[in-house]
């Protein structure tokens, strides 16, 4: 484990100041909703980033784990009267078990079989949410999810919910950072570079990949829990295939294998539709174009891409400053 040095703490300090000042300065419930949504998406992007950026596997069904978290917590708290805080571990367990069932056979194979398996499970979970209407409320959704309480006080206030969401994000950020810089993190990155080489030096690759996948699913379930109790209403469309694809996009646009990139990607892709509303029916065309353009010109994602452009510029200006000989 690397000890947290001053250099490592700078981005965190910046993050805390930004989130804190936004929380105190903003005064509009709608903005708070969007900012909390960014936090929830950031949590999902962080979870998926662990899998995609470090274990080198793609998941095309992460919305399923997000949905399992939301529906499990909603069901247990609204229908069976369980405290949401007790429902949370159950929701996490459910998501973890489903992940185990999908990941166990597919992660033994080399290649993108996990992507196909998660695509399948994502669609199946979505169909279950939509069709099993006696339990999930069907296509019209599940209503009456109780709000969260903390210390005997209901967290109805949008501002306190915003702080709760971002506190969880901060926790996930620190956790991911510690994991990545640990022995396990190095082993994971070696899998990304070459699975054969990783195995050759004795890394149990398929077990590690499975562990990261389950961890990622459990983190997504936490995001689902936060979403369900924030909005109070969930419907299958929030957890559809398109959402899984958007989560992958967040990670890739932000920059894979960069936890701050995941944060940036989540923020951009949450805000983008709000901005694109101005385009009305051109929304989808513009969204697709932006996605393709970023990937064609900055395949490493925005964080890495902008750093690369900056380095190139600096080299060019240095060359220009040097006297010609």
């Amino acid at each position: 484990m690397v000890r947290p040095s001053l250099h490592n703490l700078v981005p965190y300090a910046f993050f805390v100041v930004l989130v804190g000042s936004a929380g105190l300065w903003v005064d509009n419930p709608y903005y708070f909703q969007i900012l909390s949504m960014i936090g929830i998406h950031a949590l999902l992007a962080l979870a998926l980033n662990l899998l995609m950026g470090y274990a080198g596997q793609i998941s095309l069904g992460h919305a399923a784990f997000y949905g399992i978290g939301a529906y499990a917590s909603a069901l247990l708290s609204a229908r069976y009267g369980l405290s949401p805080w007790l429902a949370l571990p159950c929701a996490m367990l459910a998501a973890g078990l489903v992940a185990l069932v999908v990941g166990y056979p597919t992660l033994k194979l080399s290649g993108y079989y996990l992507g196909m398996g998660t695509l399948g499970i994502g669609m199946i979970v979505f169909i279950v949410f939509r069709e099993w209407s006696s339990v999930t409320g069907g296509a019209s959704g599940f209503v009456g999810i109780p709000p969260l309480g903390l210390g005997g006080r209901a967290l109805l206030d949008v501002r306190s919910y915003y702080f709760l969401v971002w506190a969880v994000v901060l926790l996930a950020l620190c956790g991911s950072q510690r994991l990545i810089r640990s022995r396990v993190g190095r082993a994971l990155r070696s899998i990304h570079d070459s699975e054969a080489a990783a195995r050759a030096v004795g890394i149990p690759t398929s077990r590690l990949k499975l562990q990261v996948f389950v961890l990622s699913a459990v983190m997504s379930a936490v995001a689902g829990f936060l979403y369900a109790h924030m909005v109070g209403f969930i419907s299958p469309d929030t957890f559809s295939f398109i959402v899984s694809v958007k989560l992958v996009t967040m990670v890739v646009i932000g920059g894979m294998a960069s936890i701050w990139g995941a944060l940036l990607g989540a923020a951009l892709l949450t805000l983008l539709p709000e901005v694109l509303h101005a385009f009305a029916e051109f929304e989808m065309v513009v969204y697709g174009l932006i996605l393709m353009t970023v990937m064609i010109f900055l395949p490493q994602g925005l964080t890495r891409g902008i750093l690369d452009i900056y380095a190139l510029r600096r080299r060019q200006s240095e060359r220009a400053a040097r006297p010609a000989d």
Partner: protein
Amino acid sequence: MQEILQYLFSGLTNGAIYAVIALGFSILFNATELINFAHGEFVMLGALCLVTLWSGLHLPLPLALLLSAAAVGGVGFLFQRLAIHPVRKPDHIVLVIITVGASIFFRGLGMLLWGKDAFAVPSFTRKASVEVAGAVLTSQSLVIIGTVGVLALVLHFFFRRTLTGKAMEACAISRRAAWLTGIPAQGMVLLAFVLSAVIGGLGGLIIAPITMCSYDMGTVLGLKGFCAAMLGGLGSLWGAVLGGLLLGVLESLSVGLINSGLKDATAFLLLLMILYVRPSGLLGNRSVQRF
């Protein structure tokens, strides 16, 4: 018995369409190892082009079919040239995300050009339906099933007997080695894109009379076609046909005999099952590497 036969017929009809879509996935995968998430959108474009050219402009049917297929092929050509070709370091995930972006773009384009309404297209022939042992087989079903048979035979002939087809096959085995023997590998990739787009468009043309055509019809069809391709073995020609027909029949039987809510889930349950039991697919010859 008569009921089961009827399910079988409707299953074969749907299955034939899945088979056509799966063929498009397989051809592209063979040449580029790429899974094109915009493939379902080619199906949508094919169907909607036919709506405009045949129902809208009243062109003769063969001409409308030809022009629609050519238009979708053109879209495939532009897609490869403008979005896939310029990527300098073609990483797998990056290319997949580009196809996802393209699928959103095409869907948006479809909505802009054709609006949000759904269109119906009349059947291709005026011939009456055929009755077999009490179950009805519509003339359009016969057209669809016939198309798949002809298409599979033509592709089989193309890959085994023509020089271009063999060159593509060589690229599928090893692009670098094919390039060293003088095969224009880049051109083959482009050809694979166009061919796969045309086949996707063809899927849209034949499905148009039996469904409602709208800008968002492609996604689910594309995903199910992908399941069919995986079921038969991604990259295998006859595997795609077998996978498609099997998927169609099982889907239809599960709807008829178990529960209609299962309709869309069947494809994905089969996908998971095949990943558990035989990840290379039923007829896939690529050995799957296990660690």
